[in-house]
C-alpha cells in the first residue's frame, strides 16, 4: 500500500497538471500516467538541456515550453524535439508567457523567459500548469505561444528526501541534486528545499573549449494560517559560470574536421582558455498570499522580486581581428572556390598555405600567448592595449506584483480577473574583464579616430570624463539603464453548456519606458547623458474559443484572438548604446491568432489535428552589426514588420497493447515575413540616421525546423520502460542577414537589374533523421524506490543536422569609395563568399544521459 502511495505521489509530482477541456480523467489511461514517471523524469532532463535553452548569445535559441497535456502534440514535442531547438509554431520565445504562482516572470525588457535560469532545480519545477494558446486558464490572458504557471508552494512539493545523480556527455558531465520536503504538517507548516550542481570542465565537456559550473538552490516555506489564508515564501537562484561555443562556417568545420568546431577558445601557456564565459545569477524571491474568500472564491496575490546579474565575455580588439575564424584566414579567401566569373583571387599557394595552417589546432584556436605578448610589448612604449576581454553586463532589477481573483460562479462557469504591476530597471554596460597583459586603454571610440583626433571630444565615449585612461574592471563604451513599467489587467470567463466548453478572455495594459544614460557620448553630447523622455503605450486584446464535444470521443476546437502588444524596451531605442533617441515609427504590434482543431479520443486511440493561422503586423525588431557598405558599425531598427505563421500539427497515440503504445507527431508550418520592411539605421561613426527598404519579404523564421515528424514506440512492463523514437526534421532556415538585403546594398552587390531586385535566397541548414531511445527501470532499495533511466540520443550519430545559425552580415564586395566621398559608390569583389558562408550550429552526435534518483 505504501509503495502504491509513493508511486501515486511520484506520478502526481512529475505529471504536469492536466488541464483537459474535454477529456475526462478516465480517458487518460492510468498506465500512461503511472508509467509516465520514468518518461517524464527523462523528458524533464531533456527539456532543460541547457545548451538548447537560451544560452547562446549568437542566436535566439530559446525554445517554447508548451506542455499542455490536453493535446498529444503539445504534450510531447518538448520532449521529442528539443534537441533541435524546436520552437512551437516557429514563434519567438517572447510569445510564450511564464508565470510563477501567478506572477509573470518573463524578462520585462525583451519578453523572453530563459529556462536555464531554473535549471538544476528540477524537483521544484515539476508542478506546472501548461496551456496551449487557446485553452482557458486561471492565471492569465493566454499568450499566442502558450503559457505556463509554476506552482512554487511548499505544500505542493513532495515530502521526503530525493537524491539524483546524473552523468552525461553533453554540455555538463555530472549532475547531483538533493531535495527534501516536509509536506504540510498538522500545524500548517510546509518546507521544501533543493540544491543541485552541474559540472563539466574543459576536458569533459562535449564541445571542446567549453565548461559548465552551475549551482542551483530553491527553498520554499509555507504557512497555512487557517482555512482561508496561507502565506508562502520561495527563494531560488542558479549561480552559473559557463563557457559558450560559437557557430562556424562549413569551411571551418571541414578544416577542423568537426561539426562542433568552436572558435571561441584557445591556448594560454599551454592551457585551454575560453573567451566567451557567461556568469549569471538571478536570485529571486516570491511571496504568495492565498486567500480563500469562500469555497467558490479565491484570491491569489504574489509579489516577485529579482536582482538578476548577467555578464558575457568576449575577445575584443583594436587592430587586426584575432579571432581564428576571421574570414581572411580561410583558404577560400585566397582562391575562388565557387567558380564565379569576375576579378577574384586564384592564389593556389596561399590557398594551400591557409589549409595547412588550419591543420594545426593552435592556428584554428585563439592564440592568447600572442595577444598577451602584443600587449606587453605595447606597455613598453606606453601605448593602449589592443586586445582585451570585455564583459557585457545586462542586469535587471525586477519588481512585480500580481493578484488574481477567481470565482467559480457555478460548477460549470468560472470568472477570473487579475492584474500585474511591474517595474524593471535593466542596467547595460561593458567592463574590461581582462587586459591580457596590457596596462590600460582609453575610453575612445576607435571607429572615429582618423575622422577625429584621438583626443577629440567627438571620439570620447564619455565626454564627462575626458580622454579617460581605463584599467581592468572599469566601465567603457556604454553605460545606461532602460526602465519599463507595466500595468496589466485581464479577465477571463469560461462556461460549459451542453456540448460546448467556451471561454472568452480580455486584457488591457499600459507601458511606459525611458532610458537613462551614464556616459555623455562624444557624438551625442546633448542627447546621451541623463534621462530620455518617457514613451507611453496602451495595449490590449480579446481572445475566445470553444470546444464542441461531438460525442463518441469526437471534438472540434475553434479559437480566435486579436491583441495589441506594446513594443519591448529592447527594441524601442534607435541606438541605446549611444543616445536617448527612440526608434522612429514605433507602434504596437497587432496580432491576429486563429486556430481550428479536431480531436478524437477513445480508449485505445487519441488524435489531435490542429491548424492555425497567426498574423503579426507592425512588429518591431532591432539589430546591430558591422556594415561593410559604410565601413562602420551600424544600429538598425526595423519597424512595421509584418509576419505570418500558419501550419498543421498532428498528434496521435495508439495503445497497441496494454503495454505498448505508438506515438506519432508531425507538423508542417510556415513562418515568414510577408512584406519588405522599412529600416532606420544609424552609423556609429557619423551618428547620422538613414532610411531604406529591407527586401526581407519571404524570409522565414530561423533556428527551428518548419517541418518535423516523429514516430515513437513506448513499452512499459512491470517496472521497465522502453522508448524508441525516430525523428525527422526539415526546412531549417538560418537567421537571415538584413544587411545583405538592404536596397542600397543590393545595388552595390549588382543585384538590381531593370527595376528588379535579385534578393539572395535565405540560407538553409540540413535536416535529417535522428533516432533516440530511452530505457528505464525502477528498483526498490531498502524499501525505497530507485529509478534508473538511460537516454541514448542520436543513436545513428548523425552529426550533419543543423540546429540553427545565421548568415554573416558582411558583403561580398568592399566599397572603395563611400557615399561621403561625394562620388559614386564603387565596389571591388571579394573572393571570400559571405553569401555562401553562413555560420551554423550542428546537432550533437550520439549522446547520452544516465540518471539515477533515489527517494526515501
Amino acid at each position: 500500500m505504501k509503495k502504491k502511495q509513493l508511486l501515486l505521489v511520484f506520478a502526481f509530482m512529475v505529471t504536469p497538471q492536466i488541464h483537459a477541456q474535454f477529456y475526462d480523467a478516465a480517458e487518460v489511461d492510468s498506465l500512461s500516467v503511472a508509467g509516465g514517471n520514468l518518461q517524464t523524469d527523462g523528458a524533464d532532463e531533456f527539456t532543460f538541456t541547457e545548451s538548447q535553452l537560451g544560452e547562446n548569445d549568437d542566436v535566439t535559441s530559446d525554445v517554447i515550453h508548451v506542455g499542455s497535456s490536453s493535446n498529444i502534440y503539445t504534450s510531447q514535442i518538448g520532449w521529442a524535439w528539443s534537441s533541435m531547438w524546436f520552437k512551437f509554431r516557429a514563434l519567438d520565445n517572447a510569445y510564450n508567457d511564464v508565470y510563477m504562482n501567478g506572477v509573470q516572470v518573463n524578462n520585462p525588457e525583451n519578453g523572453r523567459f530563459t529556462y536555464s535560469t531554473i535549471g538544476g532545480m528540477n524537483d521544484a519545477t515539476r508542478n506546472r500548469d501548461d496551456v496551449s494558446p487557446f485553452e482557458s486558464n486561471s492565471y492569465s490572458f493566454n499568450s499566442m505561444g502558450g503559457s505556463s504557471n509554476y506552482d512554487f508552494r511548499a505544500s505542493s512539493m513532495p515530502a521526503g528526501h530525493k537524491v539524483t545523480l546524473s552523468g552525461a556527455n553533453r554540455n555538463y558531465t555530472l549532475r547531483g541534486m538533493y531535495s527534501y520536503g516536509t509536506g504540510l504538517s498538522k500545524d500548517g507548516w510546509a518546507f521544501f528545499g533543493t540544491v543541485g550542481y552541474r559540472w563539466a570542465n574543459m576536458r569533459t565537456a562535449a564541445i571542446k573549449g567549453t565548461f559548465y559550473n552551475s549551482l542551483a538552490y530553491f527553498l520554499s516555506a509555507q504557512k497555512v494560517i487557517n482555512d482561508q489564508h496561507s502565506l508562502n515564501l520561495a527563494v531560488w537562484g542558479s549561480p552559473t559560470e559557463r563557457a559558450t561555443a560559437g557557430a562556424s562556417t562549413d569551411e571551418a568545420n571541414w578544416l577542423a574536421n568537426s561539426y562542433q568546431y568552436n572558435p571561441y577558445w584557445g591556448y594560454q601557456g599551454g592551457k585551454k582558455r575560453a573567451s566567451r564565459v557567461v556568469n549569471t545569477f538571478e536570485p529571486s524571491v516570491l511571496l504568495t498570499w492565498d486567500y480563500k474568500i469562500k469555497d467558490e472564491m479565491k484570491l491569489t496575490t504574489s509579489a516577485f522580486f529579482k536582482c538578476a546579474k548577467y555578464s558575457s565575455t568576449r575577445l575584443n580588439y583594436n587592430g587586426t581581428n584575432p579571432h581564428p575564424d576571421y574570414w581572411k584566414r580561410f583558404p577560400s579567401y585566397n582562391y575562388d572556390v565557387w567558380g564565379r566569373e569576375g576579378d577574384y583571387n586564384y592564389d593556389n599557394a596561399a590557398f594551400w598555405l591557409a589549409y595547412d595552417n588550419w591543420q594545426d589546432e593552435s592556428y584554428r584556436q585563439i592564440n592568447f600567448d600572442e595577444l598577451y605578448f602584443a600587449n606587453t610589448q605595447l606597455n613598453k612604449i606606453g601605448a593602449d592595449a589592443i586586445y582585451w576581454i570585455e564583459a557585457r553586463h545586462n542586469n535587471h532589477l525586477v519588481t512585480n506584483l500580481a493578484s488574481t481573483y477567481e470565482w467559480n460562479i457555478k460548477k460549470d462557469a468560472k470568472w477570473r480577473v487579475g492584474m500585474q504591476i511591474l517595474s524593471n530597471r535593466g542596467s547595460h554596460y561593458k567592463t574590461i574583464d581582462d587586459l591580457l597583459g596590457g596596462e590600460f586603454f582609453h575610453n575612445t571610440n576607435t571607429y572615429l579616430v582618423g575622422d577625429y583626433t584621438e583626443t577629440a571630444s567627438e571620439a570620447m565615449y564619455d565626454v564627462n570624463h575626458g580622454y579617460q585612461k581605463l584599467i581592468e574592471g572599469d566601465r567603457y563604451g556604454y553605460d545606461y539603464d532602460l526602465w519599463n513599467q507595466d500595468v496589466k489587467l485581464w479577465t477571463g470567463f469560461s462556461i460549459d453548456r451542453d456540448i460546448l466548453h467556451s471561454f472568452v478572455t480580455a486584457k488591457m495594459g499600459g507601458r511606459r519606458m525611458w532610458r537613462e544614460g551614464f556616459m555623455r557620448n562624444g557624438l551625442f553630447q546633448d542627447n546621451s547623458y541623463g534621462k530620455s523622455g518617457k514613451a507611453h503605450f496602451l495595449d490590449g486584446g480579446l481572445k475566445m474559443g470553444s470546444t464542441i464535444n461531438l460525442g463518441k470521443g469526437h471534438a472540434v476546437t475553434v479559437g480566435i484572438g486579436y491583441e495589441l502588444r506594446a513594443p519591448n524596451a529592447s527594441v524601442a531605442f534607435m541606438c541605446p548604446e549611444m543616445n536617448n533617441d527612440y526608434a522612429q515609427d514605433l507602434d504596437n504590434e497587432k496580432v491576429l491568432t486563429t486556430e481550428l482543431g479536431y480531436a478524437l479520443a477513445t480508449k485505445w486511440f487519441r488524435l489531435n489535428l490542429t491548424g492555425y493561422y497567426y498574423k503579426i503586423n507592425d512588429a518591431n525588431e532591432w539589430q546591430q552589426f558591422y556594415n561593410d557598405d559604410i565601413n562602420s558599425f551600424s544600429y538598425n531598427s526595423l519597424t512595421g514588420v509584418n509576419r505570418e505563421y500558419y501550419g498543421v500539427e498532428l498528434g496521435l497515440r495508439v495503445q497497441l497493447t496494454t503495454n505498448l503504445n505508438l506515438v506519432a507527431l508531425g507538423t508542417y508550418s510556415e513562418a515568414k515575413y510577408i512584406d519588405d520592411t522599412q529600416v532606420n539605421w544609424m552609423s556609429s561613426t557619423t551618428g547620422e540616421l538613414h532610411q531604406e527598404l529591407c527586401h526581407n519579404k519571404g524570409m522565414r523564421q530561423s533556428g527551428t525546423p518548419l517541418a518535423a515528424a516523429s514516430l515513437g514506440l513506448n513499452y512499459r512492463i512491470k517496472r521497465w520502460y522502453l522508448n524508441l523514437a525516430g525523428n525527422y526534421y526539415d526546412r531549417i532556415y538560418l537567421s537571415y542577414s538584413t544587411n545583405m538585403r538592404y536596397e542600397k546594398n543590393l545595388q552595390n552587390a549588382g543585384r538590381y537589374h531593370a527595376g528588379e531586385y535579385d534578393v539572395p535566397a535565405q540560407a538553409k541548414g540540413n535536416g535529417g533523421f535522428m533516432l533516440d531511445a530511452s530505457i528505464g527501470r525502477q528498483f526498490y532499495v531498502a524499501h525505497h524506490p530507485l529509478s534508473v533511466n538511460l537516454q541514448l540520443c542520436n543513436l545513428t550519430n548523425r552529426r550533419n543536422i543543423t540546429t540553427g545559425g545565421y548568415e554573416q552580415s558582411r558583403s561580398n564586395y568592399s566599397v572603395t569609395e563611400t557615399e561621403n566621398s561625394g562620388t559614386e559608390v564603387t565596389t571591388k569583389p571579394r573572393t571570400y563568399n559571405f553569401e555562401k558562408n553562413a555560420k551554423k550550429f550542428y546537432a550533437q552526435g550520439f549522446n547520452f544521459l544516465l540518471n539515477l534518483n533515489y527517494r526515501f
Partner: protein
Amino acid sequence: MALLAGAFVFVSCQDGDWDVPEGIPYGNNSLEAGTPVTIAELQSKYANVISSDNYKQITDDLWLRCVVNGNDYGDNLYKQLSVQDETGGIIIGINGSDQGAFMPVGQKLLISLKDLYIGGYGNQAQIGGLYNGGLGRMEISEWKKHVRLIMDGMSEALAFGTIKVDTIDFDANKTMAQQAGRVVRLSGVTISRDGTPIIAPDDGSVSLVSNCVNRTLSGGNAGSKCVLRTSTYAAFKGVAIPTTPVELYGIATIYRGTWQILARTQSDLTWTK
C-alpha cells in the same frame, strides 16, 4: 542550509585569474646569429637589383641585426616594417597587420636573410617575398620563421649593443642608401593644403594613390621633390594642416626620384602636440 553553504564552498570558479604566459610567442626563437651583415652592406651588395627595380633571392647565410624605427601602429605604414642599424635603413614587406604591437619602435630584431627576397620598388630598397611574379610582401608565416625578437637579458651571443632609433635631418640631396628607411626631421616646411585641408581627406577633394594622399612639402629642408604621404586609413588622417611652416618627422622613402615621408603616428606631426 548547511548543504547549500557547503555547495557554495565547493563550487569554484573555472575561469579564474590567468598568469601572463612566459616566452616570446612571436618569431623563431631557435635562430642563432650567423654571419652578420649591415644594412649598408646589404644595399651595396644588391645595389644593381635595387636600382633596376628588380629582385633577387638572398642565397647567402646573412644575418641582420637591426632595430624597428617604423611600423603600422599609426595605420599609415601598411604591412611594412621599417628597420635601421648604424649604417642605414630598409623597408620590409610583411603580409600581416599589427606588426606595431608585436614589434614596437625600438624592438631589436635578428633576421635570417637567407631565402628572403631583396629588390627595389621605385628604387626603394625592400626585403620581402614573391607576389605575382614580382617583389612583394612575404607571408607572415614566412617572416616569423626568419625573425627573432631580441629582448633585454638574452644571452650575450644574441644580445647586441644599443642601436638608437636616431633621427637625422632630411637632406633632399642624399642617396637612397644614405637616407631611406631612416627617421628624418623636416623643419620649416609648408604642407600643401589642396582640397580639404586635413592630412588625408577621403572625401574626393584630392586624388588618392593607393588610398594615400601625397601632399607636397615645400620650403625648409624639403627640397624640390618631397611629399608627405599619408593613408586615408591613418589614425591621424584628420589632423588639420596649418597654414604656417611646421616641423615633422617620418620615415624617408623614395619612389622614382621623389622623397615620400611617412609619418608614423600623430606625434610625428609636432604641431599637434
